[in-house]
């Protein structure tokens, strides 16, 4: 169990003195006490309460929840930044926490100096940093600017360097808070790749994100927090579904809180018979419908969808790959795009579909526009087959092997 009480952020002597005085005043007025004897200034608030979690080595746990759910507090306590008010945590192994990219970076110092400083802040020894130095620089792609103060770096370079230092920390447990929300798409992909390789080395990852796509892609398990309590602990698909409030399953309505002129409003998944569902039988196709609204006329719109399974991208598709009738023009109105998905060739497992929007060079994708579903197997025997769900590969496509004897022993 884990509890944490957030206190008033700033105190000044004046606040404290006046609190004492008013308490004294009330004591005088109510000399027998009993009137709010506890400190009246301090309202008690439990940022986390009754959270019980056990994470095994190698698990990749996504922590999901709305703002104020207690995700950040949980990470801060796990990272030993703040102390819990009650409860206990047992951590086995070295913990690396990345609550922010580039903590301790100083703009006046050069890239090289910052690598050493930041590495030391994260708990690396000088020898360890020296050993990793070239790998860090290579990953960050800043070789040419190593001796330039980082204040002259572009924001992309800065973030790359900062992430790179943290990513090369040898730890058993990696705690990551939404750091991937920064940087360009390419770099985000690179970060995800790095985290996956970290996970594949058997290290444990705790990952907080609002980006359901990232959670679905990276995590093997997810925990949903709400108002400081654990609501659900299960597969990413279950948890994301619960988080998104997918009532019917297979139909995702997205809260429109964007200022974007064009945004996705709804994602609907239908099986081969046209039923809305989040569970597709293995061996059958399906259809995804993306509904979106246009608030201002647009000329250069590209819609895209990305199908992924267990964290690997499988199929990326633009709306103008084949037909280009609209040529990226959209007048104000509501739109529906229906795509037939060739899922009959896909293995069982957890899948996600992200709907993406680009206008010109601007990415207007909403992180919440991700629908998760599973392909489940009811009828196909995969026991001794190559396409059993836990074997390599994502595609269910039994191939014909024509084996002939070329030479023979006589």
């Amino acid at each position: 169990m884990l509890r944490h009480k957030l206190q008033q952020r700033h105190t000044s002597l004046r606040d404290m003195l006046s609190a004492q005085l008013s308490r004294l005043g009330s004591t005088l007025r109510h000399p027998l006490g009993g009137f709010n004897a506890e400190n009246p200034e301090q309202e008690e608030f439990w940022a986390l309460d009754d959270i019980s979690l056990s994470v095994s080595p190698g698990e990749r746990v996504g922590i999901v929840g709305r703002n104020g759910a207690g995700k950040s507090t949980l990470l801060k306590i796990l990272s030993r930044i703040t102390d819990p008010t009650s409860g206990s945590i047992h951590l086995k192994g070295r913990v690396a926490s990345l609550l922010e990219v580039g903590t301790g970076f100083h703009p006046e110092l050069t890239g090289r100096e910052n690598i050493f400083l930041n590495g030391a802040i994260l708990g690396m020894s000088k020898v360890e940093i020296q050993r990793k130095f070239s790998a860090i620089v290579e990953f960050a792609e800043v070789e040419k600017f190593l001796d330039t103060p980082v204040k002259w770096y572009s924001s992309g370079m800065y973030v790359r360097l900062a992430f790179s230092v943290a990513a090369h920390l040898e730890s058993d447990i990696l705690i990551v808070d939404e750091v991937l929300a920064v940087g360009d798409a390419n770099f985000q992909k690179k970060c995800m790749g790095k985290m996956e390789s970290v996970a594949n080395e058997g290290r444990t990852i705790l990952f907080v994100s609002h980006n359901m796509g990232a959670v679905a892609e990276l995590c093997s398990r997810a925990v949903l927090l709400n108002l400081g309590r654990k609501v659900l602990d299960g597969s990413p698909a279950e948890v994301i579904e619960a988080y998104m409030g997918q009532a019917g399953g297979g139909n995702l309505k997205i809260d429109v809180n964007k200022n974007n002129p064009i945004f996705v409003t709804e994602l609907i998944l239908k099986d081969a018979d046209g039923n809305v569902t989040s569970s597709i039988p293995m061996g059958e196709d399906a259809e995804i419908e993306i509904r979106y609204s246009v608030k201002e006329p647009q000329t250069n719109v590209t819609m895209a969808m990305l199908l992924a399974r267990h964290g690997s991208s499988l199929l990326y598709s633009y709306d103008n790959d084949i037909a280009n009738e609209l040529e990226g023009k959209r007048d104000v109105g509501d739109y529906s795009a229906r795509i037939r998905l060739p899922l009959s060739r896909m293995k069982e497992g957890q899948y996600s579909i992200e709907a993406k929007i680009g206008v010109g060079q601007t990415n207007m994708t909403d992180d919440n526009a991700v629908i998760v579903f599973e392909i489940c197997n009811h009828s196909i025997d995969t026991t001794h087959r190559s396409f059993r769900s836990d074997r390599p590969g994502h595609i269910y496509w039994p191939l014909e092997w024509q084996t002939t004897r070329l030479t023979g022993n006589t």
Partner: protein
Amino acid sequence: MSEQENQVTKRTIIIEAGRADAYYWRDLWQYRELLWFLALRDILVRYKQTVIGVAWSLIRPLLTMIVFTIVFGKLAGLPSSGVPYPLLVFAGLLPWQFFSNSLSDSSNSLMSNANMISKVYFPRLLIPASSILVSIVDFLITFTLLLAVMLWYGVMPTWRLLLLPALLLLALITALGAGLWFAALNTHFRDFRYIVPFVVQFGLYVSPVGFSSEIIPEKWRILYSLNPMVAVIDGFRWSILGGDVRIYWPGFALSSVLIALILYSGVMYFRKTEKTFADVI
């Protein structure tokens, strides 16, 4: 990673409410390199940002020395224990400036590194400690200047100078102890941002910087030694100037005990409050 390092890092960390950290000092030792990196950062940044860099560490004590010599030596006509008055002042200024710089910097250090504290774990004690290391650089620069001034006046150092490191350690402990107190208090009560500069300014006049502590009447000297900087400054003069300068040993002993107490209580208070730094900063 070496076998030994692996063993240390594979340990189980238990975080529990109100539980004293079993690995506190070991953690501090493991992060010792961070102490140097933080100090190095501050030194590099200082000398990259200020145009005249090193010159600052020279101009300040020189000007103060001149003013104090005129005010206390010439106008007030105070005695100088048989050494040139400017040297008397300078030998007092050296530890005082080290102390006051250390104290102001370490008191503010947690606030100026607030972002790091709220985002990553490392032993918090390193932050105020590193700002004191930075002040040592200034100390060394000023010390070189003092040696030059001594040469100018033809005053030769004696064997007592060899004890200066011990006295510097005494000054360092005083600064660290007080710095830990103020740094921790500063995070919880912002008032200390105004209190510390006042303490430093006030301290300059109640400590024997511009005058010799020998002008204090004998019966008050033990009381005067309740100011721990009296022992430090007297010690510096004794070590650097040699000659007729004497130490008032009962007072020195009292101050030393006080200094040890300040450090001990400072570390205790800091440890008690450091777990809430990230919440209140």
